[in-house]
């Protein structure tokens, strides 16, 4: 496969599109349920050049970005605080683990009852889910800081606080980015699901459900595609930031 060079990753994409097109030609399923890839791309084009899809795209970005921002503001300092003391972390580990394992969608009705069906609820649930993932990863990053490195700072005369700010924080950064990447994926999932709920008027989740009910299949596929691209984009963005600022990661 090496002879395709940088084009290698595209092979899978082309193969998928070919299989899809083939399935469309031989009508594996009804053409209404599985339109051609071409018609999906046309719908993406129309939707993203001034259509409803573009608006929904931006609304979902806005909600997900706010969620991950709040989740970071909550999860990172808490993760550092908990992770820098192993006994403290052990005492709350079960609670964190339990809620981290609880599907965030399960608490949605609870948040609906408390905050009503508005925008705030969607962001709250996504923040709730993502902050636990971030907290967990940051705490582990801090706890697993290389002991030799902490000792090195200590013998050079660093106070406990300086060891935290000069060493532990940096040591936890790679794991923090793992948390941010997982957190943003989760936040996007929750936001999209939330947008399908009663009372939603926009967002990619709403767009998908709306077009499904109207049987506008190419448009529905277009919204799913854009949601996928958005998730990929968020992940890529954090990866690039990490590579730029956490240059020592994995070396």
């Amino acid at each position, binding site marked *: 496969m090496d002879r395709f060079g940088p084009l290698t990753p595209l092979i899978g994409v082309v193969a998928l599109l070919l299989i899809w097109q083939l399935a469309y030609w031989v009508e594996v399923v009804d053409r209404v349920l599985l339109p051609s890839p071409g018609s999906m791309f046309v719908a993406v084009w129309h939707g993203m050049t001034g259509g409803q899809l573009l608006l929904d795209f931006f609304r979902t970005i806005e909600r997900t970005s706010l969620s991950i921002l709040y989740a970071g503001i909550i999860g990172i300092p808490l993760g550092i605080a908990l992770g820098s003391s192993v006994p403290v972390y052990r005492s709350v580990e079960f609670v964190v683990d339990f809620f981290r394992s609880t599907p965030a969608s399960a608490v949605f009705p609870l948040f609906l009852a408390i905050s009503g069906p508005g925008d705030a609820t969607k962001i709250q649930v996504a923040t709730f889910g993502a902050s636990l993932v971030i907290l967990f990863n940051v705490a582990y990053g801090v706890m697993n800081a*290389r*002991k*030799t*490195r902490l*000792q*090195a700072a*200590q*013998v*050079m*005369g*660093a106070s406990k606080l*300086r060891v935290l700010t*000069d*060493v532990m924080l*940096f040591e936890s*950064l790679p794991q923090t980015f793992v948390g941010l990447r997982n957190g943003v994926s989760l936040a996007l999932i929750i936001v999209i699901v939330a947008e399908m709920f009663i009372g939603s008027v926009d967002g990619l989740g709403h767009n998908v459900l709306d077009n499904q009910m109207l049987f506008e299949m190419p448009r529905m596929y277009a919204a799913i595609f854009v949601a996928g691209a958005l998730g990929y984009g968020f992940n890529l963005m954090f990866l690039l930031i990490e590579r730029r600022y*956490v*240059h*020592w990661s994995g*070396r």
Partner: protein
Amino acid sequence: MAEDAPASLHATGASSPAAAGEPHITIRGLSKAFGEAVIYDGFDLDIPRGRFVSVFGPNGCGKSTLINLVAGLLEPDAGTIRFGGKRLRDTNFGYVFQNYREALFPWMRSIDNIRYPLKFRNIPRAERDTRVERLVDRLGVTLDLAKYPYQLSGGQQQLVSIMRSLVIEPEVLFLDEPFSALDYEMTLFMRDQLQALFMDTRTTMVFVSHDLEEAVYLADDVMLLSRGPAEIADYVTVGIPRPRTAATISESAFVRVKAHCLDVFQKTVREA
């Protein structure tokens, strides 16, 4: 082996470190246990000022534990450690770790790694830079200090690590098997760098090694430890003039000292 205090040093009849000059590090009644395993029990030791002392002994005898206790990385269960009468926190000391990869800060350039300990001393910014420059000149270092540690070879990283411990101009330098992760060629080069540095500064050095040849080659005195709880099996003054070179290793004086150390070592292993 005599149980009581500093006498244990002289018990074997080997030349006493006290004769070499005033003690720099004084350890009295040092005790340390990890759970059931008693590593030190009422251990006494004087390390003379301005000498290079190698610590050698069987695995698990507490070589590294000793310098970790002295350097404050471990809390002793009992006992006192003084540096010319001072406590550790009033003493300017350096510590070189075996695992340079995990001891350096990969998020900082090498030069910033070296500069880091100066932050904790009241040294003006301008003075910090001249300190680093002076050190680079003295060691004749040619590597690019703008690089990050992970961009350097193992030997270069350990050199940066040693420079970091020297930049504060310590009165004592602890080295915990600093060359054991390096290849042989690099080890030979680093030994000579360290020897030149010692001859230049006469900093008191406590060097833990698991390589007897290296321990003898570098040392003024070789301290041989026995196992659990650790006792000084012998304290051997090497007495071979510096600079020692590759040729030294085959000289009869060197071979004799090494053979004696090996003999003591094997006895302690058999006893344990």
